[in-house]
């Protein structure tokens, strides 16, 4: 048995001298004669000669375990009915990896039965490759032997996640991915597969013109113990965003799909489990500002549009009160009835307001009262607006 990791490229060790030095052209000649050097550029260290893996090496979760199994008849006798079975025993299951399960009729001396097996490792921990060979000797004696090859599957990556809730429905996911292997890793793909409720935008590419450039620079590889932050923006799909009740409590955001490659394209792939997020609680009624101007003139009324969503499980009968603050003054009648709102339903509310003070002002003072339960919900600091003096500008 031999594990078939990818071959490696032979590196040579260039030692050169100049014509004028004592060895003259000798060192140069030695390097040119060395078959492993690059002809015409002998001082280039990385050669083209492939060398077979030197040891078993490490194997990581998500990589493919490939192995060459060769059964060789070392004896001088022909043996018959050879059956080779390769099983992989993990801590939870036993898998048959042999390409064929039929017996080979006979094996002559000095010949062999070859098999290359592949298996994508899906478990961490001890794995044992069990190669069982049964055969019949010329005398008709049935013999059987097994060989065991034990190896450990290690964890290649450390993934940490963090959610950031925006004031809107957007959710930002930061995923820190750390390479905890001992070799550099080329991250071929790190993508977020969103759950059905969300659309995802990857924020790891800076687009300039036609070509997008990765935020991680030209070469997308991770050195051992390096960590990289990936950022994703998740927006609820419109059909779900309307139903506020759905995005409440613990929701499934999606899972990260990570594909990496190492030496000569040795590939590994992992997916995280479903990432979950506790949606921020909005209480029974959620109010968000849909439209508001950025800059308004002093003492000049302006319109804002608020959206009211019933996030509770019951129908509400709402009454709106508008309380003036020191700076913000509401126009219109306070205490008007907004009507009934069924669970999950929403209502757009155009309002007019003006400010008596310059500067950045916070819109506050909205009160909703559910007349059924006689419960009042207060909404302060729902948005900010910049108030300027129009005359000042003219004078300037």
């Amino acid at each position, binding site marked *: *048995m*031999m594990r078939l990791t990818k*071959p490696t490229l032979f590196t040579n*060790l260039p*030692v050169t*001298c100049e*014509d*004028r*030095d*004592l*060895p003259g052209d000798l060192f140069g000649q*030695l390097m040119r004669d060395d*078959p*492993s050097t690059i002809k015409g*550029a002998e001082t*280039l260290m*990385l*050669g*083209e*000669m*492939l*060398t*077979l893996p*030197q*040891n*078993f090496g490490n194997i990581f979760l*998500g990589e493919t375990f490939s192995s060459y199994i*060769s059964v060789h008849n*070392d004896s001088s006798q022909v043996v018959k009915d050879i059956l080779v079975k390769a099983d992989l*025993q993990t*801590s*939870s299951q036993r898998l048959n990896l042999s390409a064929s399960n039929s017996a080979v009729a006979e094996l002559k001396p000095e*010949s*062999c039965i070859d*098999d290359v097996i592949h298996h994508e490792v899906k*478990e*961490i921990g*001890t794995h044992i490759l069990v190669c069982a060979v049964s055969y019949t000797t010329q005398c008709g*004696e049935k*013999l*059987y032997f097994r060989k*065991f*090859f034990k190896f*450990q599957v290690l*964890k290649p990556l450390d*993934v940490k996640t*963090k959610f950031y809730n925006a004031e809107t429905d957007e959710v930002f996911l930061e995923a*820190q991915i750390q390479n905890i292997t001992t070799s550099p890793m*080329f991250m071929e793909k790190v993508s977020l597969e969103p759950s059905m409720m969300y659309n995802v935008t990857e924020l790891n590419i800076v687009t300039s013109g036609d070509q997008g450039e990765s935020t991680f620079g030209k*070469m997308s*590889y991770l*050195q051992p113990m390096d960590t990289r932050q990936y950022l994703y923006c998740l927006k609820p799909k419109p059909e779900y965003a309307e139903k506020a009740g759905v995005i409440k409590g613990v929701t499934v955001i999606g899972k990260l799909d990570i594909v990496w*490659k*190492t*030496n*000569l*394209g040795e*590939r590994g792939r992992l997916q*995280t*489990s479903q990432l979950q997020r506790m949606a921020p609680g909005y209480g029974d009624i959620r109010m968000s500002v849909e439209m508001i101007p950025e800059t308004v003139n002093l003492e000049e009324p302006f319109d804002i549009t608020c959206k009211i969503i019933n996030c509770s499980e019951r129908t509400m009968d709402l009454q709106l009160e508008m309380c003036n603050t020191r700076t913000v003054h509401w126009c219109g009648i306070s205490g008007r009835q907004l009507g009934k709102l069924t669970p999950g339903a929403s209502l757009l509310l155009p309002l007019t307001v003006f400010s008596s003070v310059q500067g950045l002002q916070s819109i506050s003072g909205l009160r909703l009262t559910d007349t059924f339960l006689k419960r009042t919900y207060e909404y302060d600091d729902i948005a900010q607006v910049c108030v300027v003096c129009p005359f000042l500008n003219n004078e300037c």
Partner: protein
Amino acid sequence: YQKLQTDFEHSRLNQAVTKVHLNIIYDILLQQDSIDLGAGEFVTPQEDSSATLSESLMDRLNDQMMESVMISDSPNNSEEDDVGPIDSFLDGGLEENGSSGNKKEESEIGQNTTEIKVPVDQKEQECTKDDIKEEIDIEEQIQIVVSPQSEAHSPVVIKSEDPEHQSPKGTSPKDEPVPVCTIFSQGTQPKSLAPDGFQPTLIKSPSFTTGSGGGSDEAVTPSKMTAPLVCQPSPSLSKFFTDNGQANPASDFFDSFTAPSSFISISNPNADVSPASTPAPLSFTPEHQPPTPVSVFGPTVTEPTTKPQSPISQTVPSLNLASSTPQAQPFNQLQAVFSGTDDPFATALSLSEVDRRHDAWLPCEETRKMLISVATQQYGPAYVDTNRLTMPGLKFDNLQGDAVKDLMVRFLGEQAAMKRQVLTASSVEQSFVGLKQLVSSKNWRAAVDLTGRLLTAHGQGYGKAGQPTSHTTDSLQLWFVRLALLTKLNLFQNAELEFEPFGNLDQPDLYYEYYPSVYPGRRGSMVPFSMRLLHAELPQYLAKPQEALDRLHNLKTVCLAILENLEKGSAEDGSMITLTQENRQASLKLWRSRLSRVMYSMANCLLLMKDYILAVETYHSIIQYEPQQRVQLLSGIGRIFLQVGDVKMAEVYFQDVEKSCQMKARDPTHTTCVLMNRAFVYLSQNSYAEAHASFLEVLKIDPRHPVTNNNAAVCLLYLGRLKESLGQLEGLVQQDPALYLHESVLFNLTTMYELESSRSTQKKQALLEAVACREGDSFNTQCLKLV
């Protein structure tokens, strides 16, 4: 009792197994294809759900930090407790097993595995047991198998004290007359060894001083320390020391006069450039017999000029010979007329263009001031602080090993080993000619020994480090060859040790200006540029790549400064000497090529450091200096990307290669290059069949291409065609051993032998025999995997 206990363990194990099964079912139901990387808050039924839930909630409430996503698989952490008993159980199970079955241990591919041959009928009895606890049965075996990671190649460090290397060579040196030759005919000169027409060799290792051949063994042992080494400065240098005796410990002088040995010296061709200035040696050495033309360089050099004892450089090969010698001759005569070395006119004249070009270097400020003060004769070199002097010496004695022969003795017996014939330091002429012979026949260990002997003769032998000495062009060239060979032999520690006294190669006594009487008018560095480069590269092989990079950057800075000086119209060192256009171009060319060589070293070092981004950038920047290497460099960068795993970027570079190949005229090497690159891409896409086909296409163009032949064979193995692959490689090694007895090919071959059969040793021994009749003592026997 034991039985009881085992039963108990069995039941515990069964529990564990069922638990694992539960896990799998759960996985299948919920996780489907994805690998379970359960997040922290993910609650699996096996876990104590209340605890986990509250914990994760706590986490969320208290901790706004990152959440760790557990990449855990179905065996949860909690099960580690259950795994423990398996091991303890195994001990019991193993004993049982051992007594029942016929157990035979053997090792293969570095792993201890157990092969159990059980007659089928007996096996069937066991099978009933197996049926019940098949899982367990497998687990039983765990203990037997040693973790494969334990296999590691530990580098073999050869120490000079190693007794193996003291063992006498196949032909015992005691029986053979030792090639002792000296200019100072003391009667010990065996004629048999002087080849036809050879002049007596100048050099003689001090280890031969006892006259009889037994001495050479002493040379091998470190006990040599006690025996005083005889060392003599070369005649010209002796004069140097008589002038400034203060710098030299008196003992050294007494050694030179009182030692019962013959006078040993190494001639210094460049020191004799102006004999008029160094008349002293003759009077200093009474034994000296001027009529014999003596030379380190063997018989080829006979110069019928006014100074018979001055050997004209084989060290300064063709290039220098052609340009400088004819020039130098009249100057020497001129100097004889002027007879004063201080005359600036004569000095300026004697400056050879080529010397100046190659030796130019920019010393650090302190060194520069000191050199100026030496030149203006403010004070003699003798007053220079010893801290600022370079006092090298051999740090270890003869290596003299031949690992191939040692292996032959071990595996093929003494008799077979006797057949191996390699050149040793003693079997060649004790000169540069012999040295070159050893190097070109790949007997680098012997060559290192010979440099040791030659340096010992120069007074820089074993234990001489830290003692005042003087340097010549030749002594530094010898050091360079020695250190370069040590590096080639992967004896990096030894090279570092011997490099140490040289400091940063910038001490005043390593410049020609320091020896105004020996090298009148000559300026620049005695240290060859290649030696500076070697010095800079060395730390990267000793896990100190940062230091190597620092040194390489220093070299680069000097190269750039010199190029700037040249472009400004001054000489290399910035002095206002008008150069002819031709000379300036030649200088620019030389220094550009040196700069590019430094850049190569930097890129190689960065590659070793796995700093691929900078390595790629640096390789790319070399293209501007070496446009003819564009194809090779771009392909190399592509291969770096493949090594990293970025196949797409590699393809981008390979496409670049194809474009540049199309632009140029049809060159078969370029076609092979393109095909080779394609093959590597296929390889990286796991398409071994296509890769193999591409390699075969290369072979259609160049059937003897060694790399391709090897690579095609490697592909065959990945295609499951072991026998074919083996057959191909074996055939190649047999047909064309000169090309295929290469470390990497043999490594592949022996690896496949090990895979093929448990009786691979025989085949490896056959390889050893093939190696023995072709390869020199520098062959790396590790690739044969015999030990």
